[in-house]
Structures are given as C-alpha cells and as structure tokens.
C-alpha cells in the first residue's frame, strides 16, 4: 500500500510539474525607456535574402534592413547610398556617386556590392523569383542574362570605381529612381557574406549583414525583431530603437492583441471594419491592387475571340452593385486597368490627370448597350439564341472568391441570358497550371503594381508578354512602343500610355472589377508611419513614438 501511495504521489507530481512548468520554448522580451513599435502581419516573410524576396511582406522587411541607391518613402524619393547621380541625355545611362556608408559590420558599402546583387538577381542558377524585375525596369540585357544566353557581366550595371556606379538601360525609364528606392531586390549584397553561408545565407538573423536603418536581430518563433543600426549613414534621423513584427495568422487574434495594448498596428479584416470605422485610430490605404478578370481570346470557346462578346460582358456589369454584394462595399469599384493612385502629369495622380469615367465602362453598367453588343456578337458567330452561349469562369476555392464568381455569374446571366459555369480550383492549380498554361476562358485574378508607372499594368497585355493572358493587339503594342521611345517629354509619354489603356477598354481585353484598399488600426502614439501602394504597404523606417 505504501508503495502504491508513493507511485500515486509521483504521478501527481509529474502531472503538476508538466502543467505548471514555466519555461516555454520562446521566452519573454521586455523593454524600458526605448522607442518601440510592435505590429502584426498575416503573411509570414518567406526569406531574408533580398535577392529571393518575392512578396510585399518580404520587401517591407528588406526596406527597413537594407538601403538602396535611393530611398522611397511613400513616393518621396531621396538620396540613399547614392549621394548624387547624373543621367545621360538619352535617359539610358545613370551614373551614381555613392556616399561613405557602412555595412552593419563596419565595412564600407561599395559600388561592387550593387553589381554583385544585381547579377545574382538575374543569375539563372540562383533562380530568384523576382529575376524578371530588372527587365521590367529596362535594365540592359537583364532578360538575356536570366535566360542564360548572356553572361552576368553583360548586365547593364558596372562599377567604375568603389564609389561610382553606372547603370545602363535599354530604354529610358523615368521611374527608375523611384523603383531603386522601393524595390529591395535591387539593394546591395556582400559577396563574401553570401558565399560564406551558401544556401543558408540569411536563414537566420546572424547569417547576414545589413545596410539599412535597422538590423534584424531575431527571426525566431514568428517574432521578427529589428534594432536601430548605428552604422546606418542617416542613423541620426532614425527615431525608433526597436521594432517587433509578430506573424499572426488570424486577424481576430491580432485584433485582440491590439485591443489589449500588445500591438501598435494591425490590419483589419473586412468583416469587422464596420465596428471600427468611426474610431480615431482607424485608417485606410490603397494598396495598389487592382482586381479583374483575365480573358483568354485563344480559348477553344469561340466567343472569346469576339470583341463584341467581350464588350457585352463588360457593359453588362453593374460594378457598384457587384462591389456591394461581393465585397460588402469595402473596395472601390473600378472600370479601368491602371491604378488611379499612380503618378500622372504635373504632380497630379493618374486618376486626377485622366477622367477615367469618360472613356471606361459605365460604373453601373449599361444593359441595353450590352445586349446590343451581344446581338452583334451572335450575328458574327452565327449563334441564334443567347442561351446557347455557355462560358466557364475559373477562380480559386477561397470563400471570398466564390462569392465574387457567383455575383458575376448572376449579373451576366440576368443581363445577357447566357449560361455561366463556375469552375473552382486550388490556389496552387490556378497559379501553377491554369493561368500559365492558358487552361481557362475567363478567370478572376488581379495585379499589384511593381513600380509607380502605368506600364506595370499595361505591359501584361503586350503581345510578347504571356504571363496570364495570351491577349495581343498590334495597335496597343505600337502605342506602348511609341511611349517608350519618348525620352524628353514625360507628359506626352503619359498621354500615349493612357491612349494604350483606352485601346484595351475599346477592345474588351479584360473585365475590370475593383481597386482594393486595406483598413487598419494604428495606435495614435505612432508618428510618421507611411503607407504606400507600390511593393510596400507600411513603412516605419523613419517613424517615431510620441513622448
């Protein structure tokens, strides 16, 4: 009996010890007297190797821990590692003069560090997901190096000496300076560090060196800790001592932590916006994402090659009603392609420069016109009854996308009398197979801008670009080429790009739906947190905490 009692006592002690054991794998972190910003993200960073960064989340982090030739803070472009620069007359050769700046380990940042970084970005053997970026901003030979036809040394970037860097473009791109300050894949890298760690480079915070305002000190346990980089060239103007980014998957959980004062910033789920939108700490930013439907004119279904049919779909939609039903009215219904927040002419935005509504599809639709287009299409296609037309709409299996598909289905069926089938596939399927192999008729997708210029959207529809849609139109290509040839008159270039967008609209090249925005809560004690629509959403590098 005694033995049994002892055994019982031991089991009880073990249970209590397990349950009450205070040490968890993480461990607490606290701060006193420091300026700290704590926020949450619901997209886990995929990498801290800036060459391989491939999402807004990755880019936002790199924007804080690395420094480009320029720095773009919410559209305001200021000198970064480059103190000054000269631009050749044809707009194709940029010569950057670098300042004396150091890496976080005290080594000087050299022009060669940029050359190495750029060559690595397009090196097919490295296979960076964002290798295409250099080509989109016009860097000479970027596409050739990435396809393996040219050697990395032939890329349009050259170190004249330690402090002078020359970048050559194959076409003038006025947006280059803005892109250099915002797309962190273009920031410098230290060859010795990358080679020292090999495949494990940047796998953890200590296997890297940093050129930006902050250094990463921990990436463990879904908590990313940034501390002020004393070696940063502009360290005197960096106010925050520390930033903590928590990866929290569930928006509700993050919101709970914000409300209990453990976070200073959270993004809000659309479902709860209604409860918060009158609060002082509520805010909203446009994230540059434009959602729309791609059309595959080469589909087996002959209706898609018919312009009048595509226009019928576009005119049949009441985008205001659609936005109410599909997005609870939270986004902005949109009837064109280029995000209205782009920089337009004379300091105005693209949306202010051009009156989109004068040439785009009517926001509330025009069913009569749609039916007229449909009648024309049917005549051309030799179809007697609208009900004989059957189209297939593809989207992912996400609940929100299903709702979008159903609203569109209903509007098209009601307005045109055609039959719309919905095909739902997985996320991996739609981006891995369906779009790349054009295995669709019409599908829901969208585009987030890569730089602040209409071509980031327009280029997708070029005949020689086959990312999502095989669409092609020689008139459209010619307009883009003409715009590209203009070096000295940015306004004339912008007009040509706008005319190109109008060609897409007249041709029913796609079906625009909405411009997205994001609601958030930001603690009122935070100052100078910037929101931006291009590759970066939240920028806290120069933020401050009110005393």
């Amino acid at each position, binding site marked *: 009996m005694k033995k049994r009692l002892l055994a019982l006592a031991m089991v009880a002690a073990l249970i209590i010890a*397990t*349950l009450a054991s205070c040490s*968890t794998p*993480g461990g607490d972190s606290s701060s006193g007297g420091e300026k700290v910003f704590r926020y949450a993200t619901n997209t886990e960073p*995929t990498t801290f*190797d800036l060459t391989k960064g491939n999402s807004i989340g990755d880019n936002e982090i790199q924007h804080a821990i690395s420094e480009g030739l320029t720095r773009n803070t919410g559209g305001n472009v200021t000198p970064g590692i480059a103190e000054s620069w000269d631009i050749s007359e044809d707009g194709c050769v940029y010569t950057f003069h670098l300042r004396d700046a150091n890496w976080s380990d005290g080594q000087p940042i050299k022009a060669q560090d940029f050359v190495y970084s750029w060559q690595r970005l397009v090196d097919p053997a490295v296979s960076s997901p964002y290798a295409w970026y250099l080509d989109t901003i016009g860097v000479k030979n970027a*596409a050739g190096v990435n396809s393996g036809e040219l050697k990395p040394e032939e890329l349009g970037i050259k170190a004249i000496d330690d402090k002078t860097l020359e970048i050559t473009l194959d076409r003038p791109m006025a947006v280059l300076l803005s892109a250099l300050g915002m797309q962190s894949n273009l920031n410098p890298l230290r060859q010795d560090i990358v080679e020292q760690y090999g495949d494990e480079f940047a*796998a953890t915070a200590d296997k890297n060196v940093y050129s930006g305002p902050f250094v990463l000190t921990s990436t463990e*346990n879904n908590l990313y800790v940034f501390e002020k980089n004393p070696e940063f060239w502009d360290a005197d103007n960096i106010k925050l001592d520390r930033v903590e980014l928590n990866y929290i998957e569930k928006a509700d959980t993050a919101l709970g932590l914000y409300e209990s004062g453990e976070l200073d910033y959270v993004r809000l789920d659309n479902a709860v916006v209604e409860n918060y939108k009158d609060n002082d700490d509520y805010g909203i930013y446009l994230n540059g994402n434009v959602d729309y439907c791609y059309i595959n004119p080469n589909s087996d279904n002959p209706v898609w090659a018919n312009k009048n049919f595509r226009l019928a779909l576009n005119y049949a939609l009441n985008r205001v009603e659609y936005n109410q039903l599909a997005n609870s009215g939270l986004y902005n219904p949109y009837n064109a392609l280029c995000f209205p927040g782009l920089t337009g002419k004379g300091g105005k935005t693209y949306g202010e420069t051009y009156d989109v509504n004068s040439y785009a599809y009517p926001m509330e639709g025009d069913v009569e016109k749609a039916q007229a287009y449909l009648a024309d299409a049917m005549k051309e296609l030799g179809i007697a009854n609208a009900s004989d037309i059957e189209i297939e709409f593809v989207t992912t299996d996400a609940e929100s996308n299903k709702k979008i598909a159903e609203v569109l289905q209903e509007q098209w069926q009601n307005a045109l009398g055609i039959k719309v089938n919905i095909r739902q596939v997985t996320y991996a399927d739609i981006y891995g197979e369906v779009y790349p192999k054009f295995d669709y008729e019409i599908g829901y997708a969208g585009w987030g801008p890569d730089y602040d210029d209409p071509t980031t959207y327009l280029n997708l529809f070029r005949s020689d670009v*086959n990312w999502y849609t095989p669409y092609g139109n020689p008139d459209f290509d010619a307009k883009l080429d003409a715009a590209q040839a203009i070096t000295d008159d940015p306004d004339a270039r912008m007009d040509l790009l706008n005319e190109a967008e109008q060609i897409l609209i007249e041709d029913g090249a796609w079906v625009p739906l909405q411009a997205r925005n994001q609601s958030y809560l930001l603690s009122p004690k935070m100052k100078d947190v910037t929101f931006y629509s291009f590759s970066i959403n939240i920028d806290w590098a120069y933020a401050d905490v009110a005393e």
Partner: protein
Amino acid sequence: MTKYVIKRVIAAILTLWALITIVFFLVRLMPGEPFTNPKLSPQVIENMTKYYGFDKPLIVQYFQYLGNLLHGNFGFSMKYTNKTVNYIIGQTFPFSADLGLRALTLAISFGLVLGILAARKRGTKIDFVCVLIAIIGTSIPDFIMGALLQYFFGIKWGLLPIALYKGFKYTILPATALAFYTLASVSRIMRASMLEVTSQDYIKTARSKGLSELRITVKHQIRNAIMPVMTILGPTVAAVLTGTFVIEAIFAIPGMGKYYVESVNNNDYSMILGMTLFYGIFLVTANLIVDILYGVADPRVRIGKK
C-alpha cells in the same frame, strides 16, 4: 518479448518507407505546380524548375530524395527558400510538443479521473456531470472552444493572455482548448469500458473474496478497463504533439501545424514530404510504444508467447 519488439520495429520501418514512396509520387499528382507566386514570369518558372531538379525524370528525383533522407536531410522548403525543412521542424516542433504535452497531461489525467468517477457513481449527479462534460467536449470543435476561452478569460475578464506563447500563463488557454476533445473522449471510453468490466466474472469473484471496493477498482477494474484508452492514445499523442493547426493559429503559437497545412496548399513538395514523414515517424513510434505497452498490460497480446 524481444522477438515481438523486433518484428514491430521492422514493420514500422517498412511502413515509413511505403509512406515516403506513396507520398512522393502522390504529391506530383496534385493539381498545380510548387511555384504558385502569381508574379513569376515564364522564364523564372523555367529557371526554378531546373534549380529544383524537376526537369529530371521522376524516378531519378525519387532516388535522390531517398539518398538525402538517409543523411537525415529533408531538403529546402520551396516557399521559405533559405530554410531547410529540418530547420523549420526544429524551430516549430518544440512549441507544438510543449503545448501538446501540457494538453495531453491535462486530458489524460482529468479524462481518466472523470471516466472512473462516472462509472463508479453511475446514475448519480456526478455521473451526469461527467457525461455532460464528455458530450460538450466531443461536440464543440476546438476552434470554437479556443475562441470562447479567449473571449471570456482573455477579453472579458482579462485574466489570461489572449495569444502568443511566452510563458506559463500563455499556455493555459491553448492547452485547455486543445485538451478538451481528448479529455472528453478519454473519459467517455474509460467510463464505458469500466462499466463493461464491472459485470465481468473476475470482478464478482474479487467481490465475493471480500476485497475492499478501492482494491477492486484500482487493481482489477482500472487495469482491465484501460486497454481501449491505450489504443486511442497512440494516434492521439502523435496528432497532439506534432501540432494542431487550428489551436496554434487561434493562439498565434509558432508551432508546426500551420506549415503542414500550408505546404499542401502551396504544393511545397519538400515540406509536404518532410512534414508527412516526421508526423509518420511520430505516429509509428507512438503506435509501437502502445503495442509494446499492450504486451506489458495484457500478456495475451504478445505474439511470441510461449
């Protein structure tokens, strides 16, 4: 007994090999490709296909993978490009295991006690309460339980932290939420099995021998009634320790569960294989231990009995 154990171990290894082989080929049949970032140009996809060796024949890739496995190397994740699957498991498993261990201890100890109590006091209010807890536990899904606990203990009463995992008080809510279902099933099975045992002849014999009630319950009833509970413990331990997607997500715990689910959504082949194999090893080991314990508890089970 040794022969029995050796046989079990060999069967376990064969099971794992079959698992790897089946999963290796099945993931390739899933619709889509592992490169699911919407912003990959066709050239980039071509480069990545080469980089990961997907342009080689499948059978070559299979033997390469097996070769790496022999060195304990699960390869690099395709989504978290600089991290090996080993590293991700090493980072996240301690959290899942810590949470799981707490939940298991809670579930098994309370589950058994409730089950025994209910059976001993059958038909009384105590029995009713125990059965009620069991029904609630099995019918309320853990994500609702988690959210309810969060709301009342975290937000409404402010007693415990809502989420994250930074110390003892952070563990209470998630462990309770996670434990509830297992606790309920353990108590239900224990109660039923206790009642079944009560009517057995050997209990009547023990009682007629004049043994005390306590002695009958502890020595004869529980020992025999616990067998069905042990049967479910194998898979339960493996499932609970290797991370539960929902509870970890609700409480923002940096555990393994999320990576498992996410890898399937992203077609992250190396991660799916690594996670499945890791889970498989756990499940097979847990079952192996249960098998052996079975042999200990019930001599008839031993296959090599003399």
